[in-house]
């Protein structure tokens, strides 16, 4: 049964409990930051920040201010470009939908970094591999919700069977529209054959920095013919180099 996180932005207060819970569960260090004229920090998702809340100020046509919050991380696509371009199989689908990452196999080639239509994968300079949200498989497969969901105080994040959450999300959109939130819409149902993070948005996706029509990007990174045996040779070399580099660094 496919699982998913539902992010209901209409219930999010931007407290960033999810952002910290993620760091705590996965033991991710804090990054040095500076206040740059927004509550949002760190500036981007990174190897040490797999989930962060975006703070978006908008002004409606009547001049009324809006402040939108979006808990942002990997969307766990069904048609996952990262997975398609991964030469080593480090990126793989869990049966319930998570796009997981096996650090042991990752060779640090970074094809996934450029393939991801959402820009959520980052190269980790320290390990020489990539990092991203993996949807807490250790928790989920033990019957728990991901750390971010468990910590959310308002119910803006919920976790469960994707079908059920999809039904709830649709109802929510109808409800919000009836209440006057004309811009309310569902994101993630059909995008890339279905995301495992569903969003109830109050504005157009691009307001939140989400691509209107995310594209399966494997083709733009890799010409098709390379997706063959040749590739695996190339990858093997890259992997070896990367491995050596890591080994070398370890001795410093």
């Amino acid at each position, binding site marked *: 049964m496919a699982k998913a996180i539902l992010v209901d932005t209409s*219930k999010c*207060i*931007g*407290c*960033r*409990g999810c*952002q*910290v819970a993620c*760091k*705590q569960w996965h033991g991710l*260090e*804090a*990054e*040095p*930051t*500076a*206040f*740059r*004229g*927004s*509550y949002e*920090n*760190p500036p981007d998702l990174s190897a040490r920040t797999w989930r962060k809340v975006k703070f978006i*100020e908008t*002004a409606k046509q009547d001049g*009324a*201010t*809006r*402040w*939108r*919050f979006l808990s942002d991380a990997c969307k766990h696509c069904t048609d996952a470009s990262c997975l398609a371009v991964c030469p080593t199989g480090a990126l793989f689908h869990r049966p319930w939908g998570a796009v997981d990452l096996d650090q042991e196999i990752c060779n640090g080639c970074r094809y996934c970094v450029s393939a991801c239509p959402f820009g959520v994968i980052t190269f980790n300079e320290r390990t020489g591999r990539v990092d991203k949200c993996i949807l807490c498989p250790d928790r989920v497969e033990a019957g728990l919700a991901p750390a971010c969901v468990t910590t959310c*105080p*308002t*119910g803006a994040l919920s976790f469960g069977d994707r079908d059920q959450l999809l039904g709830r999300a649709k109802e929510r959109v109808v409800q919000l529209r009836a209440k006057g939130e004309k811009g309310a819409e569902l994101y993630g149902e059909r995008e890339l054959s279905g995301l495992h993070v569903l969003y109830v948005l109050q504005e157009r996706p691009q307001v939140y920095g989400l691509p209107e029509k995310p594209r399966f990007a494997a083709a733009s990174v890799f010409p098709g013919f390379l997706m063959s045996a040749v590739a695996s040779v190339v990858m093997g070399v890259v992997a070896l180099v990367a491995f050596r580099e890591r080994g070398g660094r370890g001795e410093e």
Partner: protein
Amino acid sequence: MTNHWIDVKNADAILIMGSNAAENHPIAFKWVLEAREHGAVLINVDPRFSRTSALADLYAPLRSGTDIVFLGGMINYILRKNLFHREYVVEYTNAPFVLDPAFDFKDGYFSGWDPQKKAYDRASWKFQTEADGTPQLDKSLKDPNTVFQRLRRHFARYTPEMVEGVCGTPKDEFVAVAEAFAKTGASGKAGTIMYAMGWTQHSKATQLIRTSAILQMLLGNIGVAGGGVNALRGLSNVQGSTDMALLFNVLPGYLGTPTKKDHPTLAAYLEKETPKAGYWVNKPKFLVSLLKAWYGEAATRDNDFGYQYLPKNSASYSYLDLFEAMYAGKIKGFIVTGQNPAVSGPNSTLERKALERLEWLVVRDLFETETAAFWKGPGVDPAKVSTEVFLLPASAHVEREGSYTNSGRWLQWKWKAVDPPGDARSDGWFVNQLAHRLKALYAGSKAPKDQPILALTWDYGKDEPDLEKVLAEVNGYTVADGKPVKSFAFLTDDGSTACGNWIYSGVFPAEGQNRAKSRKADPPESLGINAGWGFAWPVNRRILYNRASADPKGQPWNREKALIRWDPNAELPDGKKGKWVGVDVPDFRPDLAPDAKGGGNPFIMLADGKGALFAPLVEGPLPEHYEPVESPVKNRLSGVQFNPLAVIYKADLDKLGNPKEFPIVATTYRLTEHLHTGSITRNLPWLVEMMPNLFCEMSRELAEEKGIKNGDAVVVRSARGEIRAIAYVTGRFKPFKLGDRVVHEVGIPWHWGFMGLAKGDSANVLTPHVGDANTRIQESKAFLVDVRKA
């Protein structure tokens, strides 16, 4: 809170004002969102569009320090449009009481103002009485001298135009708020008001909160599920500290502290402080039982139960007064625990200087705070500081057990998760050691000054105190057998009972039964009373004044959200029939029928049992707007510029700014990511990562005027000092248009200081030592600054 956090879900309208609840109470905010899911309208009024505003259905801006005008405007709107709950107002408040015709209000002053003494003679602030001494009534509310008519005339000046001109709230936005909230005046509807430091830190804060109480009584919103005036406490146990005499003017359970002048003896205290009617007639039982709890066998009838051991006030000992006295060199030693005044206190330059004048300072904390390190702070030469500083490691909240009282008055027991590291000790351990060692130090002394310590009962164990034993003493017991009393109804004034805090009585009703530990939750679809979860003071009552949730005949205004009702057939223990029944503990005599004498007087703590629309405080019996002590504009409502009884301190560092030099309004606030002075949170890398630096929020218009860009370093200056911050230029702050004038406001979080991982200047360098007329809480939510690019 008159109500409690979960009860917020029962509201039909929620007005959050003077609070940024989503930011500062993110966990409990879920109850606000649940109310919204049920169709409640969420209203937020705030100087800037905040995290709370982001979730609100209605948002209206107002200039800091003008809340009385906004609420007064709502009162005026409701009275003018006849939207108040008439039966509630007539039957349950003092609206129909007829005032002395000599009572008056003219150009900012109530009758009785003495400009020489700078005080009021309250002789005219009284009701006309019948021959038997009870107030004259006019239930038609037509007599021009009724409280109702006086109130109406008083607030008639608070028009939507006045709101716009003073608060800077566009008229239509104000009217939208007034209209939405006024709908709760309908019988069976409930509106709640949630406030916090945005209301308490003003020079007329008490009157501001009174204005909200008047509004709520007019709408029939007090005593009902989903209603109330609800103070959101800023820490997990602030309510508990307040209940246990954190405030300088009360003993545990809100018994006033005795003063040298008025209360030389126990008899004098009881004579002067015990009212003739209302529940406070029991005050002697509470005070004598408190003395018995504290002084045990040393408290006898012959020695006034040890009353002489109690210190007697000869001056005000408020926070501001203590720091002024310290600055004047009158205080030798200072123990600081759970506090960081070098960052949290207003006019921090003065307060840090005051610490230099101490002989010794003890700080107990998790990290070396700015208070502990004041001697190496900015501009301080350690060689010139002679204060001896002791820094003791304290335990964190997960490293100790005890009861915590939340905003909703619930006592909940918390168990220890881990032992504190190293030499760190719990607060209980520290107090226990201090008491034992002082007693040993004074042992055998005959000096009168040592007797209060020697007489103190102190038997909670040697090392870590047994906190359940403390709670059992707080609950109270019969002296003869040491058995717990079931509630304060069993306390006496003859020395046969002891009780550490009468309002907590009932939390430990029998040996081994600590109700703070009970954990039986109500089902989610219920009203959320949760009588089996923890213990709420008083007597496990969850919603105060709940007699008012039923009509004069004793039937609920709202049957679906009924709290109690009169059941004429319910049987009493003695076989008689007729009692109050329901999901909550009645805030009323359980067998007093609605048609009996006093059966329709729901406010039992007051002598006349009626909600006080008219209620004397030091600066008047009705709230009136005055500008903050530092304000950029003239008071438009009267010739009196600011609260004539505001407490303004006058030491050399207590400077006030004028609007020519400092034309911009400033306010301070907190962020979700940091707690108070940041003494813990600025040492946690994950939190520092999210909120690394001090910033100053300002509008685009102000930034443009000053040539400041988002992210620029700026200097913010007040008459007290200046700080550096990073400019946060945002559309969420808008300039206020007051008639033909534009007034700018900036906002600065007050979490930063010179210690910790994330260092920065403290916002309180800017704030003044100006206190509310009744409470002496500092006016740090509205003061004047100027801003420039650094």
